[in-house]
């Protein structure tokens, strides 16, 4: 049985990518590992693992292409566009603001004269890299584009064909709790919520635990930098949500240094996590 493990946490900089890469690195010594970097806004796993990535595919969305010979300037396309991506002034031809368009095709469906065709707009790239037993597939959204979740979904879809050849699929998510994180979490078996014992870490962890509960994904808490402050605030929250703190990683300058130099960490807490999720 393949297990899909998501690494998330809510707050940024708590160590999501550190844990994801360390877990992938360690497991790859024995198993075939597929690591998906679904932080398409700011993908970093390749930097930590020192993997050179190669572009395999563009991620494109649909964008309306107007045939002004057929257009009767009715403005319906602009009216149905909830993203306000189509500008229409009475008596003039409508036009699209590409950055605003999410590719939903509502305008095309609404057009009574069939004057809208589908053109393609590049919104990102899918990249792949390998190191021994570890395959890393990631996405990179084009700066200026808003809908990160479209790139996340495209990477997931692309990676689907690979999954059957691997023993574990590890998914690194973005910070936050919004659409790209939700899209990354859907379909995962286990979520590892990485946090730190500060009021900010606690606050965002609670949001993520509420989210994984809603999505019905079994969660574990990974307490990173466990000794930088009183960890009681996280222990109390863990009790409230009946979720286990599976591993604790005390602060260490070596870990910080490894990260700042772009190296995966090795720590017994990672073995602890592997034991628990197996």
């Amino acid at each position: 049985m393949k297990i899909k493990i998501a690494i998330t946490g809510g707050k940024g900089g708590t160590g999501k990518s550190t844990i994801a890469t360390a877990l992938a690195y360690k497991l790859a010594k024995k198993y075939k590992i597929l690591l998906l970097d679904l932080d398409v806004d700011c993908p970093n796993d390749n930097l930590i693992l020192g993997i050179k990535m190669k572009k395999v595919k563009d991620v494109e969305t649909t964008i309306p292409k107007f045939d002004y010979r057929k257009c009767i300037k009715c403005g319906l396309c602009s009216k149905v566009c909830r993203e306000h991506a189509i500008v229409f002034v009475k008596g003039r031809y409508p036009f699209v603001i590409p950055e605003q368009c999410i590719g939903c095709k509502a305008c095309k469906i609404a057009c009574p004269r069939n004057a809208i065709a589908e053109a393609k707009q590049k919104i990102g790239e899918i990249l792949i890299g390998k190191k021994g037993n570890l395959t890393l597939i990631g996405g990179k959204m084009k700066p200026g584009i808003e809908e990160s979740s479209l790139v996340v979904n495209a990477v997931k879809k692309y990676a689907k064909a690979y999954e059957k050849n691997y023993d574990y699929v590890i998914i690194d998510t973005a910070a936050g709790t919004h659409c790209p994180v939700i899209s990354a979490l859907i379909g995962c078996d286990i979520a590892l919520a990485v946090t730190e014992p500060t009021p900010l870490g606690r606050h965002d962890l609670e949001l993520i635990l509420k989210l994984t509960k809603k999505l019905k994904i079994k969660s574990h808490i990974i307490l990173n930098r466990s000794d930088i402050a009183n960890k009681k605030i996280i222990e109390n929250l863990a009790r409230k949500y009946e979720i286990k703190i599976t591993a604790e990683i005390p602060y260490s300058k070596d870990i910080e240094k490894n990260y700042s130099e772009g190296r995966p960490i090795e720590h017994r807490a990672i073995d602890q996590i592997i034991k628990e999720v197996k």
Partner: protein
Amino acid sequence: MKTITILSGKGGVGKSSFAASLSIVLAEKYRIVAADCDVDAPNLALLFGIRKLKKKEKISTNYKAFITKDIKKCPNAKKLLDVCTFSAISWDERREMPVINKFLCEGCGACKLLCPEGIELRKVKNAVVGRAKTKYGFHIVSGQLKVGESGSGNVVEVVKENARKIAQEIKADFIVVDSAAGIGCPVIASIKGSDFVVGIAEPTPSGLSDLKRVLEVVNHFGINYGIVINKYDLNRKVTKEIEKFAKVNRIPILGKLPYDKKFVKAIVNMMPIVVYEKKYEKIFKEIVNKVKL
């Protein structure tokens, strides 16, 4: 009234800590309003020691599609699966009808155009927006996206709008906007309409890579910006790289902050670092002087 927006691309590099201290230092001389625009993981209020906001109101910036009982009459029902760009619609074989995954639906309404009777678009209350007066004398506006909901960009717009209203009432000089991590919709919504952007850089390969990506977005809007290097002594080699990147691109370095455990202690005590450790006030004042508006 000028808006200064704090961002970084990478999360956890010190955006909120910086925004909190910048607000304190600005407030000594000017009238300000702070706005936490990291609406899916808002933390700025906590740094001012505020656990609960006041005047909270539920807002709705988003729609979601729902199947109605008339769906069986719609001849296009099966086509809905292909029309949904967000893969939110699947087919329930047993009930012979489409179902919508509410976590994936973006409320674009394309499905309703195919089945006007069988689909209903409903406004959803997707966020809470509130405010509070900090003990430091100024207001903070903060928003919270409801768990599992989408539309964070629109929620950011509402938070900024509310901050602007207060700023107009009190004739504020500055609005300080703390943005989310990443480069997607909530960050773009935070950048829009700003007068100056401060990019927080952390000297790690990820920190630099992410900063470059988010500054590329800022370039789209033609807004002036500067860089603050946080924990600059963590990796001096990458710090040098950041400085080189800034020099080549003619981006001013507004200041550098050292790695200091006191920053964590300040967070634990829910205080901005300039309040917890007075000696940092000087660095922040120098940064303020370098912000060109």
